[in-house]
């Protein structure tokens, strides 16, 4: 039994007078506690995979099984974090963070304390009454992460959450996220087009082909890299070889 598995998932986007294939027979499975990256050029359907797992769009064909049960609609055990933070500008930080519990009717004193604790853990103490507009991009993305963690999802879907940040902030946030997810024993799927990010954060990397949205290769990240922080993985002697290998895979169409 696998934790989460996709079985021959295909997806078509329909417009009024045409259609495009976003995914073709995508199958993979993920074990509990694993961190998997989906890497590929833009337009390869990687975000579509996340939307399908999140239950926001319905796949045209195939099955998504979560603990052997098919996912039909948005599942509360799955948390979704978007490319931009999408904090609600009219809500204070604490109200943003408590959005999930509020929607689910679980807004108690306990969740408030939990929120304050996690905010402090990610390095944002005493900011709960500020509005998002007074925070920097990195801080806002951290708030968005806390918001996602508040509903205690078992799987986190991360849709290029660091791509809108500057390089330094991005490296710091990668460290923080990978540490946090390890501490909370979360399973995560990260979508990215950054090879370094994929290698340094994940246990396994699924490489996608742009046309017509299928898996071209799955790369295992060596055990000794998995326990390092993303920052140190990038300086590990084995890093460059993996990077080159993936680079070749991504560019194989261009060289042929």
């Amino acid at each position, binding site marked *: 039994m696998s934790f989460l598995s996709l079985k021959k998932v295909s997806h078509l986007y329909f417009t009024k007078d045409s259609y495009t294939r976003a995914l073709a027979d995508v199958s993979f499975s993920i074990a509990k506690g694993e961190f998997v990256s989906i890497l590929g050029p833009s337009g390869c359907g990687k975000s579509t995979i996340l939307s399908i797992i999140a239950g926001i769009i319905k796949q045209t064909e195939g099955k998504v099984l979560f603990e052997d049960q098919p996912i039909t609609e948005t599942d509360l055990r799955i*948390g979704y974090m*978007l490319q931009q933070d*999408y904090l*609600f500008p*009219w809500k204070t930080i604490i109200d943003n963070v408590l*959005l999930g519990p509020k*929607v689910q009717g679980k807004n108690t004193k306990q969740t408030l304390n939990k929120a304050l604790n996690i905010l402090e853990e990610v390095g944002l103490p005493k900011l709960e009454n500020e509005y998002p507009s007074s925070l920097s991009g990195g801080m806002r993305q951290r708030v968005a992460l806390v918001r996602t963690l508040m509903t205690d999802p078992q799987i986190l879907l991360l849709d290029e959450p660091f791509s809108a940040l500057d390089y330094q902030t991005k490296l710091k946030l990668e460290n923080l996220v990978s540490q946090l997810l390890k501490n909370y024993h979360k399973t995560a799927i990260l979508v990215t087009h950054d090879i370094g990010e994929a290698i340094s954060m994940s246990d396994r990397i699924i490489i996608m082909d742009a046309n017509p949205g299928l898996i071209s290769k799955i790369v295992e990240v060596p055990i000794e890299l998995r326990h390092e922080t993303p920052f140190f993985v990038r300086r590990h002697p084995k890093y460059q070889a993996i990077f080159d290998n993936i680079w070749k895979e991504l560019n194989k169409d261009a060289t042929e």
Partner: protein
Amino acid sequence: MKKSQTDAVLFKRHRKQLSRERKYIFLWQIIIFIGFFSIWEIASRLHWIDPLLFSSPSHIYSLLVDKIRDGSMLTHAKITLFETVLGFIIGTILGIFIATMLWLSPRMSKILDPYLVILNAMPKVALGPIIIVAFGPGYLSIIAMGAIISVIITTIVVYTAFTEVDENYMKVLQSFGATKWVSFKEAIFPATLPVMISTLKVNVGLSWVGVIVGEFLASREGLGFLIVYGFQVFDFTLVMASLLLIAIFAAIMYKFVEKIESMLIKNKA
């Protein structure tokens, strides 16, 4: 130390410049105000314009003082103000309510789309006689006029704003398992608050149009009635005085909406 001193001096100079600019603008506003009324007064006294048709500020002033003293003007003004405020509130709330229904049911919005377009294009004032027949010649039809003139445009503008809210906010809510109604409450409504406030501003003007036209058509009271009455008995001082009051009340209502706006949109970046 020295640096911060010069900074302070520069800041002082900047503030002085700002306040000078403000004074200059205010001065010209006063000049236009006084100039307009004095030219009107002089033109009327020297018979450059017919004083019977265009009256004069001094006549209007003394008429207003008389009518306010005997209380008759206030009764009329109160009635019109009441009708306008009510028409404005009903029109706006009903418009936002219909827009909400349309947003909650995309199919309904598609079905109703051509009808909204037609209703919007139609001059609502032309419905006056029908409204009076339906509601009787009284407050009710005048309030209905004030409301109906703004309801369709409010519906269309607010509904469009609803559909233009970034759908990623909805995605966030959806991932927490939010229903459509909860998404509306948490994201759509607060995100479109600024648009709704600006429709309020437009609706202030529209409701006055509806109510005054309504009073033209069927009324024994109100400022619109006074205008028509003054026209019929050839008392243009009365017409002008009523107009002046309408202008003042409309401006006050507009300012009031602006106050609400600054209260509601405090925390916008």
